[in-house]
């Protein structure tokens, strides 16, 4: 055996060993997709516009207080759309000082001055940054919640071209309304003064204001699980913002019913104390995610701790505590897609996928053996090695095997032997032209190479487009196909050649080959 043969065989053995090593142990290295394992798949869009609205509101408030501090007169400072603030009034006198304020503290905004109107617009790069941040923060918050809820091996990642969608895969959850509520809650807890209510309808609530609500008031509906269905008119401003909430816990009210306990940090406690002291006897509402959860009369000065009571079940209390603890979502979420696959369907799909793979493999093996005899056996060895490498690489990349992935593996089987068919047909042709077996093998491999290369590359090109276009499982299919084809370039051309050389190479006179 010559030297080049030694390293070729060495390489093949190394590849086999590496693949087996990557694949071991099989049940740990190959991740099954949700369609095979059962579970819940969600795609949600983070409504990043809302995050910008909040940011713009904060900036507008900041601007108001700075104007107040500098005793700059203005008529109105309002938010327009999600990324603009408009200042109106006779601003010409103070233009210099306004410019100073904007230059010092509002560098993230571009401003246009127009006499009685100054409008600020968030710089596009800052806007994008804020959007990205809110998506990242949403992802982090959801991860916390899912972890606390105790789902094994969840996948939570960004998805989509704009990067504003989140893909959430939760294996093993198949009756998921509770999980979804948990994920979706923005957990914006607010304490707000009640002006009037409850009303049966929104129209009734508006009646006192002739249908036009003043800017500092807001109509908020009740959460029908806790209170009777209806509406309250609340002050728009929150007494204590949610960020001053220090902790939340399961508690009981004076009758022993489940309730949510909470504590403020020192800043929140001071504010709450001041507010309750000034408003004894009045109504206070607790608003979670824009729904009135509870309304209570302020009976005493409250500072650090409190409880929210209402018609809670123990589970509901636990869930509210969980979302309050995991932090607020920076922006609301919108469901784009949801797929829930039960465990029995997954088990059934695995059985069927395996059957299809074995069936396909068997048919191809039979065909190659019958049609190409010994050479067919050669291609089957190459094919099995191809499968091994394919699985090994998938294990290395921690790829997820789903039903489309299984289809990809099957197609790889069919396409991998194509290279062998091309080579063998070429060898037959060379033999027909009267060449000796050895040079026919040589010519067969050499001449078929570029054809195989071209045709495999075209398949890869379209698989790349498919990868670009597809979501989750379809991406998995494209990846499987690309890996399978790449592996076939090695097995069908290189390995298959080595097997030929090993079989026929040492014989001095070779009159006939089985092909």
């Amino acid at each position, binding site marked *: 055996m010559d030297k080049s043969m030694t390293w070729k065989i060495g390489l093949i053995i190394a590849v086999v060993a590496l693949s087996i090593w990557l694949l071991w142990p099989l049940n740990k290295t190959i991740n099954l997709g949700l*369609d095979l394992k059962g579970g819940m798949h969600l795609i949600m869009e983070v409504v990043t516009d809302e995050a910008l609205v909040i940011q713009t509101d904060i900036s507008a408030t900041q601007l108001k207080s700075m104007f107040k501090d500098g005793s700059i007169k203005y008529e109105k400072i309002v938010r327009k759309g999600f990324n603009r603030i408009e200042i109106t009034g006779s601003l010409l006198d103070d233009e210099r000082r306004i410019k100073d304020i904007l230059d010092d503290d509002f560098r993230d905004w571009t401003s246009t001055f127009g006499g009685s109107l100054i409008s600020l617009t968030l710089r596009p790069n800052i806007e994008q940054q804020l959007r990205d941040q809110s998506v990242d923060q949403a992802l982090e918050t959801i991860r916390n919640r899912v972890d606390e809820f*105790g*789902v094994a091996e969840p996948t939570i990642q960004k998805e989509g071209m704009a990067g504003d969608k989140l893909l959430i895969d939760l294996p*093993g959850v*198949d*009756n998921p309304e509770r999980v*979804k509520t948990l994920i*979706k809650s923005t957990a914006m807890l607010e304490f707000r003064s009640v002006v009037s209510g409850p009303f049966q309808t929104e129209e009734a609530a508006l009646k006192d204001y002739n249908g036009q609500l003043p800017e500092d008031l807001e109509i908020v509906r009740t*959460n*029908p*699980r806790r209170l009777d269905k209806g509406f309250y008119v609340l002050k728009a401003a929150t007494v204590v913002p949610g960020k001053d909430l220090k902790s939340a816990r399961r508690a009981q009210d004076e009758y022993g019913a489940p309730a949510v306990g909470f504590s403020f940090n020192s800043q929140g406690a001071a504010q709450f104390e001041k507010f309750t002291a000034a408003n004894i006897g009045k109504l206070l509402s607790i608003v979670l995610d824009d*729904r009135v959860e509870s309304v209570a009369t302020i009976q005493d000065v409250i500072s650090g701790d409190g409880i929210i009571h209402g018609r809670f079940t123990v589970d509901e209390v636990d869930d509210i505590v969980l979302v309050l603890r995991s932090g607020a979502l920076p922006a609301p979420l*919108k469901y*784009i*897609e*949801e*797929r*829930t*696959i*039960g*465990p*029995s*369907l997954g*088990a*059934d799909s695995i059985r*069927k*996928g395996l059957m*299809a793979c074995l*069936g*396909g493999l068997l048919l*191809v093996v039979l*065909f*190659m053996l019958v*049609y190409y*005899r010994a050479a067919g056996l050669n291609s089957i060895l190459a094919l099995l090695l191809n499968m091994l490498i394919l699985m090994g690489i998938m294990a290395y990349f921690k790829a997820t095997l789903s*039903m489309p992935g*299984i289809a990809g593996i*099957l*197609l790889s089987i*069919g*396409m991998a032997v*194509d290279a062998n*068919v091309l080579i063998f*047909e070429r060898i037959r042709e060379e033999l027909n032209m009267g060449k000796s077996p050895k040079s026919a093998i040589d010519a067969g491999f050499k001449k078929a190479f570029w*054809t195989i290369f*071209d*045709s*495999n590359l*075209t*398949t*890869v*090109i*379209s*698989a790349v*487009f498919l990868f670009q*276009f*597809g979501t989750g499982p*379809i991406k998995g299919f*494209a990846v499987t*196909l690309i890996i399978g084809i790449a592996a076939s370039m090695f097995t069908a051309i290189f390995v298959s050649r080595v097997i030929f050389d090993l079989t026929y190479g040492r014989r001095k006179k070779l009159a006939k080959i089985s092909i």
Partner: protein
Amino acid sequence: MRLFKEEPKVKFINKRYYAFALSGLIILAGLVLFFTRGFNMGIDFSGGTLIEVSFLRSTSIPQVRSILNKINLGDAQITRIGSENKFFIKTLASLKKLNLANTVKLEDVEEYELVAREIRSGMLDAAETDQVAAGKIDLNNTAEGEIARFLRGKALSDEDAQASAKIIIDLRKSNTGVIADFSALERAGIKHRIMTVLRDNTFLSKFTFLSVEFVGPQVGQDLRRKAALACIWALIGMLVYIAFRFKFLYGLSGILTLAHDVLVSLSFILFFNVEMSLQVVAALLTIVGYSINDTIVVFDRLRDNLKIMKKDDLEAILDKSLNQTLSRSIFTSLTVFLTVMSLYLFGGEVIRPFAFTMLVGVIAGSYSTIYQSCSWLKVWEKYFLKRKKS
């Protein structure tokens, strides 16, 4: 073994007009269907809710429909899966249709969840509905974690709760998804003590939801555009690559052949009313990448033959190239055909639209390589040969 003892000598090119006519007819029929009936859009593209439900007892489509009629969903699309008691229920229904808009509407529950929930409770009979109202859970429609949590709430130890939940789910996996009665659970090894808890606090309905899928309406439109774009870009990719490896006119013939394969596949999808979904698009794109392969084999040979057979006319050279590579064109497609066939037969209902599209595409691809790719070159012979000489 050999398909042809000697090199075949079939005259393909002079039958090109028959081939063009046949393909044209298929595509025309497809177009007519496209404009009259349109595609049977899956929820990937149309949006909506798709539920796969399995019944314990033998159930027919009219029976399922009468259940759905009760909740105003009688016009949902119901498909039986094979000959089993499993069905797909597809609906675009909204709350208004369900007459739910005026009942207590939970704002934190999405509309489609209510649709699925409504269908689920519609399938329960009166006795089962009472059990739900009494706070019992349905072991056939509750997840492992939820069952375990529920049992813990009934004063079972963590260990017992988890072990029992696992036995219940495993039993559902091995059955059709529906557990018939409590004795089956007992036989599966749940302790007597726990069985008492289960009998008191849970019940077994006669069906299970195998899967519930929802796609929002805004996704579909976006996806349709993206799917079409992906196919077009892939075709252009092929054109560029072949034009680069061969010559422009080869590339043009190549993508006309490919466009033919895609259009014929789409036509057959329309003929058989196969559901248009993401996986069908995946199959179409795979066909674009795969079906060009045997065309490349032929073009490779053609390029060689054009150098060798300088004196022959183009038609003879084209026929010769096709005949020389005929067994290759057939057998490379055959191996893929065999694997896709296996997928179609054994892979189950979920993957069948993909397998169907691939089957049609592979056959169309093989046929078009033989009857179309070179025929196109013959059609613009004048330009093709001129370029060859220059």
